[in-house]
């Protein structure tokens, strides 16, 4: 049960900011960021690493970083372990996507608050759980009929960054 976009009330940005935003968003987001000044300035480079701190270049991610530090997983899983799919290509594609859209949203200040996980990221994360815990959950998973997958985060929403 996630909020449908139709229900989101966000302030529209001016055309100018959008264009400019896209420019920097590309710079920030795409792994191939052409060492633009902006890119360096906003620590865009660090965004390519697995260091959770890089996510918190945006104060908007700060709460999650703070909570993650207190989480049962901080010793064993970083942001990207749960929020990017396994494998080099998909991983950097997702990081680019996060980077792009988050940058766009952030710089235009145009996004729904509180931030909610998107359907796609939710699936990425659900799979991330299995990546590490498939052994543990093997039995309960084998029951899964083709139609509906068991949701881990229905019960374990707080594992990465408890409230």
């Amino acid at each position, binding site marked *: 049960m996630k909020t449908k976009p139709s229900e989101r009330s966000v302030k529209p940005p001016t055309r100018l900011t959008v264009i400019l935003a896209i420019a920097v968003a590309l710079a920030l987001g795409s792994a191939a960021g052409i060492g633009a000044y902006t890119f360096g300035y906003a620590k865009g480079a660090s965004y390519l690493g697995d260091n959770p701190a890089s996510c918190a270049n945006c104060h908007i991610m700060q709460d999650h970083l703070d909570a993650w530090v207190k989480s049962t997983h901080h010793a064993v899983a970083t942001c990207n372990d749960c929020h990017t799919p396994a494998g080099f290509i998909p991983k950097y594609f997702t990081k680019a996507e996060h980077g792009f859209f988050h940058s766009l949203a952030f710089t235009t200040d145009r996004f729904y608050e509180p931030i909610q996980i998107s359907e796609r990221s939710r699936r990425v994360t659900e799979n991330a759980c299995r990546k590490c815990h498939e*052994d543990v959950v093997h039995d309960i998973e084998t029951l899964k009929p083709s139609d509906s997958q068991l949701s881990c985060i229905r019960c374990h929403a707080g594992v990465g960054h*408890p409230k």
Partner: protein
Amino acid sequence: ILLVSIFERKQEARNPFFRVVELTAETEDPAVWGKNFPMQYDDYRRTVDQQRTRYGGSEAEPRTPSKADPRSVVAQSRIEEDPRLKTMWAGYAFAKDFREERGHAFMLDDQTYTERQQAAKQPGTCLHCHASIAVPYKKAGDGDLIKGFEKLNQLPFAEARKLVTHPVACIDCHDPVTMQLQISRPGFIEGMRALKAGEGVKDYDVNRDATRQEMRSFVCGQCHVEYYFKGPEKRLVYPWASGLKVEQILALYDAAQFKDWTHAETGAPVLKAQHPEFELWNQGIHARSGVACADCHMPYKRSGALKISDHHVRSPLLNINHACQTCHKWPESELKSRAEEIQGRAQNMRNLAMDALVEFIGDLKTARTGGAPEAQIATAQDFQRKAQFYLDFVEAENSSGFHAPQEALRILGESINFSRKGQLALKPATGAAK
């Protein structure tokens, strides 16, 4: 160290369950299933445990076995705990014997030996919810579940009883091949079809259309529901055609002019509500949040390298860390007292409603013997029917209001109103007095 520990677990986990035996649609004996799933089987057998909670669980009461009733242990008697129940049920078998329910392991014996069996001849229908009957139904119907169901409903209890051996078992909730949950109970299959039809969904098939998450509640809804026996063929029916709320169910009974019995002290055509856990849960915030029966009554537990569902079905308050704490990060003691505060409010209101009903029944009795006008008596009797069904809907529901805290109090408040209005209906208009 962590690496090692994970590594070790991987070893254990490599092949989680060995299929030692082949399970088929005819495999009734849970011990056989247990060969493939020893952990679930071990927990399943623990439903013989009896432990009391503040408002639930059950107490092991020793008794000297007799020829008629070989049980050496039973659960405490509810009608001795609260004799007002005898007044509410005067003239009905429940006034003879009604005990606190206990673990699944006892369901077949408790049904077979309850004094309610002596008090009235019961049909085979009863077994629908007290035995592993998926296989017997199929057999009796030569492969056709519904046919077998109809056949057994019409046998006398004693006859039908011979056809079953186990309490609810694996086959009643599971597909023997895929181990997926499946519904084996005609009463629930037809009840859900009627409910959905009422909501405009045509030809709903629970085994085809339900999601896995729904199934985690539906398997319980096979039995933990309000029901009645329809017509001379004693068909088991779940009264859901117009909805699951108490007033919707009562409306259906009124329309069918159905009554469970005639009240011995007042002559009112009254109803007995029975374990509407599924119905009340449906009105609660947990159901609305997608929390299933199994989430609380069969929570996952860690067993070696694996997570499994705890098949020791019981009060979640005996298992708070697994049943509640994954979702609620409060201490056990705090969660326990939250549940008990909710139950306590419901219990107090239930007592007010019970007093009101008993006083009302007293008044109605005197009024009748005092020869009050027919119309007046009839009006009062209808109030009794309402008051009693509403009260019993919460009284017979086994969570003491926890499954839907606010709705439970709503129902009890209305019950009080019905009882008191019934009493007033027996009095002359004020002013006219003296």
